[in-house]
């Protein structure tokens, strides 16, 4: 849950990048860190392990400046994607305000995407939240690999698999070269701040 300091007119919210292992969650944060230096308000912290897999979480603090008279701060997190880190994933998701679901476009990862989305649904439910209500943006990552001749899922199929019911805003992306990264986070921030504005009435 976001914190709103009425006295200082300061709002702080939490966005979590979720998705299966090796889908590119950390790559998204790395790109944001190196590209949007003006808005990044601290170091990006990563705790990774064998083969660069995220072990606990990545963390990137940002400051968006004044929006409707409020100083808006955002904390970006990634969760560990591997199945065995389920308890850590749940911990990181606690009190989340907005979610970016990063799906892997590789055909061989189709099932993993669906399992991860289901896992997100279950974890949100356990916190009394809902995947249908939380600000959510889908990102179909690794579209650049099409050029390598590797079988990718068509966007339409990914939409059908993952977004048929949710109808969340979605973006094709290649986080490795920044394509779609900004659109994704911008959409998620917009949705999250609108949602918080309704909940906390901070912009009035």
């Amino acid at each position, binding site marked *: 849950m976001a914190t709103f300091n009425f006295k200082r007119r300061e709002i702080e919210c939490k966005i979590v990048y979720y998705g299966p292992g090796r889908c590119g969650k950390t790559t998204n944060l790395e790109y944001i860190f190196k590209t949007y230096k003006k808005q990044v308000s601290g170091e990006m912290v990563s705790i990774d392990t064998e083969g660069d897999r995220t072990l606990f979480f990545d963390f990137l603090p940002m400051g968006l400046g004044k929006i409707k008279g409020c100083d808006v701060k955002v904390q970006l997190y990634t969760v560990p994607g591997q199945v065995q880190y389920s308890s850590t994933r749940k911990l990181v998701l606690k*009190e989340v305000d907005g979610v970016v679901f990063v799906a892997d476009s*590789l055909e061989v*990862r189709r099932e993993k995407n669906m399992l991860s989305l289901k896992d997100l649904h279950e974890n949100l439910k*356990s*916190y*009394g939240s809902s995947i249908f209500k939380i600000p959510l943006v889908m990102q179909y990552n690794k579209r650049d690999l099409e050029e390598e*001749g590797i079988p990718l899922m068509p966007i339409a199929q990914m939409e059908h698999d993952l977004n048929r019911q949710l109808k969340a805003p979605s973006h094709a992306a290649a986080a490795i070269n920044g394509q779609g990264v900004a659109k994704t986070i911008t959409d998620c921030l917009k949705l999250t701040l609108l949602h918080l504005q309704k909940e906390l009435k901070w912009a009035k």
Partner: protein
Amino acid sequence: MGAAAQIKTLLKEADLYQQQGLLNEAKERYKKATEILKANADIANGQELIKSIVKKVVALNQAINRINDATTKPEVSGQKQDLIKNLFSGVREGDGGQRDLEGAIALAKFGQFDRALSEFDRLLADNTVRVAAAKNIIRCCIELEDLDQAVKRFAAWVKDDGFKDSELKKIRFFLDNRLRNLDHDCTLPERTPVLEVEDIEVDHQASDKTSEGPAGFVDEVEAESVDFDSELELHEEEFLDINSVGIQLPAGGPKGQMFEFDVSFQTGNSINLIIPSTEKTLLKELKAGTKLPEMQFFSPIAILNGSGVVTSKTRIKSGPKEGDYSLDITILTT
């Protein structure tokens, strides 16, 4: 596509999956390529290619094993532990003891047990959080699978004068309950009780503090699977004795049906029920974290409507109730 072209494609995909860190997918591609090579003995340099693939698969297996064998929650640097404490303590402002407790709990949740234990130990000196700190020390010992150490710590608290009898009673109940759930048979030591007349005022203050607890605490109890929590529990006398409860499923089960169960035991706002293994619909729906917005509580003097949250669900492994489930529920509102 001819066999040679198929093999070329498979090897290219395997190489790319490996670069992506998708080791199992890479291995799968190498296996397929090997099968095609074996079925097409006429392919030039086929045997050489198989040998080279075998080497790659061996290396992949080693990498996969390294990942699978790696501990999921290794100790991290002090700096990163500080970050975990700050980001996940759930309390940003206010009371120092509560904030420190939440920070230590966050460390324990992330598997940083050595540091968490030393912080919980320090918090034993703080009147406002020492019972919660003691319970979390026990939880750490249980997580570290050192039940004997949990019992030893409790025995030491029984011997020294750090805890009041009423506090020890709570810790004892907590430990006893956990040990029983783990089928660990042992008799916990008891302290000879003394009258605590001078503590009445202190108790009252502690109670006030508890009820004002920070907003994060409520979420903690409602949402977690209760591995670690900061339960600054309400005093037992604030709750009526509940003999049985009615549970209506929030979703999934027959709409409107109320399932009734006897309460096995109760401490304050926590109750324990035994759910027979035959109640399959109910058991499927009830998990740690499940909110129960529609509950009825039957006490000898009143029937109350309220809500609760399932804090743990454990399968009973031995005894006459073997196969049934022990369910802990925290009452949220009545």
